[in-house]
């Protein structure tokens, strides 16, 4: 582990893909994508609709099996690993269409996530009160994301935007090494956008974040690195300034005014 210390000053690549590709019945959704996600950095994946961003997410998290290419997580090849295993190795995602446990309360939602890293998920012989020791951490997360007021509400009763926030809270509960966020701000009101952006920045201090986002001001604000996809292929990469100056990116994605 001495090596880790030595390289800490340099960016450390935690998740990388090489030559990643995926076909759907003759249609190539993702092709030849190389990607490096670094520790303590926020990496944005942007591109027009249908460019293949969500598909890349699905490939990286193994919800889809790649047709081509190789994926490495924390130095281990995960090209053929099952999605739950990948999650246990420290790569956790959110979904583009919000995903919560609707009939559980906000706190229970977070606690379900906390159970696994705390080794409290297979004990069928323990009473539920065994989970009480997760309360403090859960409440802390809920507080952090401004959901304290809704702690005992059922997730189903939350508005769309708050469901997204809750989803981020559950994701953070796993304290993942790499966080994949699919359009975390979509459908959120402005004040939430700023808050969530702040949260993402904070959590990125200790982990790598890869996010898909159409809200370019957020991307410009918090992302260290941007990769632009179009028709499944990478057309540009670099920091926001570089990328947004690229004429190909402007015509394909941003349009005239951005």
């Amino acid at each position, binding site marked *: 582990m001495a090596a880790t210390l030595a390289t800490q000053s340099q960016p450390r690549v935690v998740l990388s893909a090489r030559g990643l590709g995926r076909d*759907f*019945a003759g*249609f190539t959704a993702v092709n030849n994508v190389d990607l490096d996600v670094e520790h303590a950095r926020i990496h944005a994946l*942007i*591109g*027009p*609709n*249908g*460019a*293949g*961003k*969500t598909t890349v997410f699905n490939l990286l998290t193994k919800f889809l099996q790649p047709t081509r290419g190789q994926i490495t997580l924390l130095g281990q090849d995960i090209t053929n690993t099952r999605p739950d295993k990948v999650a246990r190795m420290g790569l956790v995602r959110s979904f*583009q*269409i919000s995903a919560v446990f609707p009939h559980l309360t906000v706190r229970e939602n977070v606690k379900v996530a906390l159970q696994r890293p705390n080794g409290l998920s297979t004990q069928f012989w323990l009473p539920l009160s065994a989970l009480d020791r997760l309360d403090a951490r859960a409440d802390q997360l809920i507080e952090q994301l401004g959901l304290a007021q809704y702690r005992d509400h059922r997730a189903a*009763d*939350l*508005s*769309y*935007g*708050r469901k997204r926030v809750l989803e981020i809270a559950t994701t953070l509960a796993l304290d993942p090494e790499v966080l994949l966020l699919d*359009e975390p701000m*979509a*459908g*959120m*009101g*402005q*004040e*939430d956008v*700023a808050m969530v952006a702040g949260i993402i920045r904070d959590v990125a201090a200790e982990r790598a974040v890869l996010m898909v986002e*159409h809200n*370019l001001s957020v991307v410009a604000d918090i992302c260290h690195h941007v990769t632009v996809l179009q028709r499944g292929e990478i057309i540009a990469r670099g920091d926001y300034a570089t990328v947004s100056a690229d004429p190909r990116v402007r*015509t*394909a*994605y*941003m*349009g*005239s*005014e*951005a």
Partner: protein
Amino acid sequence: MSAPLLNVRDLQAWYGESHVLHGVNLHVNEGETICILGRNGMGKTTTLRSIMGILRKRTGRIQFAGRDMMALPLHQTARAGLGFVPEERGIFASLSVEENLMLPPKVAEGGMSVEEIYALFPNLEERRNSQGTKLSGGEQQMLAMARILRTGARCLLLDEPTEGLAPVIIQAIGEVLQKLKGRGMTVVLVEQNFRFAAKVADRFYLMDHGRMTAEFPVAELPAQMDMLHRELGV
């Protein structure tokens, strides 16, 4: 001035036992685009669903083109000329893109032709034979809009049509809305994307906890910015 095309008075609505709309008043004139602004969970979607008649536990008055919409069964609202694009898009997985597009029955003349639609949304043409829900999020949004444009509805209810769309597409949709306006289309828009709304709307409503708390035409926008900042954090 003639009577408004859509007139909503004292609309109240419930989800089960939870009271969500507490007396919404709004009107839309023929050919006008209005935009309802408001933070999450204030009842914007609920307002549209109540007007459309999808949410049936409601009271108050809804008049469209001189007809009382409260008594109409759900499948008649579309025939009266209302078209709805839901927030969750409602693309059908068991239908191909093209079948999705062709699904809503034509209710009047004057809708767009399929060629026009494909010209507007080239992605859809390219993926016309794939399964509806295999489209990307943004493509699904386009499809949801596109299929209503075909039917010849006089008044569109759009629930956050730009959510999750790339800036180029948002721009394109903005242009479509301008074009539709040119043809005299009436639009009720629910939006979080204020910059987009500012470009297409003629008049704004601000919604807060199930009521309209402010109303102003686009001309007053600059004057209202402070208030909006306060209310929406724009």
